[in-house]
């Protein structure tokens, strides 16, 4: 602290002179910079050198901004995450449904193949309206007489028999479901061949199997298929599985409950069976809205003449003849 020699008088003079010199230079620079352009170039050069300094000076605010943005981004990410999770759930649900659809599709195809082996044409018909009422179990299909639908056709789905056509308009048709209280269908037990009649009872999930003789060989779990008797339904299509069997009030007969194999209250499409019609050429069937199956035009030697004729006919007439 003691090191502070007093400035000599001559130093004062020298200091003043130096001040004047520096002031002169400063003023010169000021004027040159303010009025002239020749300094701008030097300035530009110097600015390059100053870049790191500016960068440093801007660093805190940039960091602050980054932190702020990061916080915002975090919030957005959390939000996104939440939303995406929800979407994933929905997508998974959709996927599950599509898998169900795919499975159903496969079953339908299997069935188509089966019907094709029996030389039966099927027509895929979308469901327009569903009427599931205890007293009325009907479907309305978006396919009518114009598409070749006629009264009495059997209606099936992936699981089995659904019902039959009871009315048509040019563009729509009405299906009486198995489960309608007015409906009855002749069946046989696959295991034993016992013939029975299954009635609807106005519930989409259960059919009634009344008046089973006590002596008949029927057990819960037996599978019932159409017997073909009566000529309305072709034989061999699954109808249901016996869920319960119990003696009725008179104790003379058994009463059973049958779970239909067809998905009465599910699905968007049904198949219309058309027995006794030979398979159309695939192109014609596609054109007419018939589901194409990989069958040949004339299969084996058991094709009856009418079928062969229909098959051989050009697409248009075959399509026009319902």
């Amino acid at each position, binding site marked *: 602290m003691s090191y502070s020699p007093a*400035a000599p008088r001559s130093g004062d003079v020298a*200091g003043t002179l130096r001040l004047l010199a*520096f002031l002169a230079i*400063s003023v010169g620079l*000021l004027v040159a*910079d303010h009025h002239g352009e020749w300094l701008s170039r030097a*300035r530009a050069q110097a600015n390059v050198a100053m870049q790191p300094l500016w960068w440093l000076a*801007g660093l805190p605010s940039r960091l602050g901004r980054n932190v702020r943005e990061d916080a915002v981004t975090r919030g957005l990410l959390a939000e996104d995450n939440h939303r995406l999770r929800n979407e994933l759930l929905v997508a998974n649900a959709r996927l599950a449904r599509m898998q169900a659809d795919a499975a159903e599709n496969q079953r339908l195809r299997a069935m188509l193949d089966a019907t094709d082996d029996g030389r039966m044409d099927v027509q895929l018909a979308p469901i327009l309206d569903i009427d599931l009422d205890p007293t009325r179990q009907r479907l309305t299909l978006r396919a009518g007489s114009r598409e070749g639908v006629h009264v009495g056709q059997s209606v099936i789905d992936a699981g089995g028999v659904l019902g039959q056509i009871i009315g048509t308009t040019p563009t729509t048709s009405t299906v009486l479901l198995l489960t309608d209280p007015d409906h009855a269908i002749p069946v046989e037990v696959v295991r034993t061949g016992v013939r029975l009649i299954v009635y609807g009872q106005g519930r989409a999930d259960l059919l009634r199997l009344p008046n089973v003789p006590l002596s008949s060989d029927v057990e819960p779990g037996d599978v019932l298929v159409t017997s073909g008797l009566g000529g309305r339904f072709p034989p061999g299509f699954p109808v249901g599985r016996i869920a319960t069997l119990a003696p009725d009030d008179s104790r003379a007969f058994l009463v059973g409950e049958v779970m239909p194999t067809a998905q009465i209250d599910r699905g968007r499409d049904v198949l219309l069976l058309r027995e006794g019609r030979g398979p159309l050429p695939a192109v014609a069937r596609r054109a007419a809205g018939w589901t194409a199956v990989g069958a040949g035009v004339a299969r084996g030697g058991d094709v009856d003449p009418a079928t062969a004729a229909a098959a051989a006919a050009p697409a248009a007439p075959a399509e026009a003849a319902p």
Partner: protein
Amino acid sequence: MRRARNSWVLPVSVLLALLLGLLPLPELLQPLRPYWLALVVAYWVIEGEGRQGLGFAFGVGLLADLAFGSLLGEQAMRLVILAFILQRFRNQLRFFPVPQQALAIGGLLLNDRVVNAAVHLAMGIPQLPWSYWLAPLIGMLLWPPLFVLLDSLRLSRRKAG
């Protein structure tokens, strides 16, 4: 030996003063920004053992002009004037207690504003708003902590050595 040890404090303090001068501030705080560079230059002129004088102030001022984008020579001139006055009263200032030093620095900073206004007037540059006259007050208040900080930085090395 001792000077070599402490040499880092000076450039770092000047650099920090430049950075603090450049640091973006909200519009409202802008006028209150103290003239850090003047404070640092003042410290080195007072405590720099006579080696930092007008040339140092001029150089730092030119650097500041380049960095701040002000007219070349403007801050150089202001700092040179500041340094000259400080040199004149250096021996008295060194023995002032810190609060009194702060008052003197406040006066110098106020004078600096006057010089600045004069330069602007002479060059036909628009004057700064009146609120900028508050900056010297802040600078004055900042002098004691700054002085203590720089002193401790400068002297701690010496003690350690």
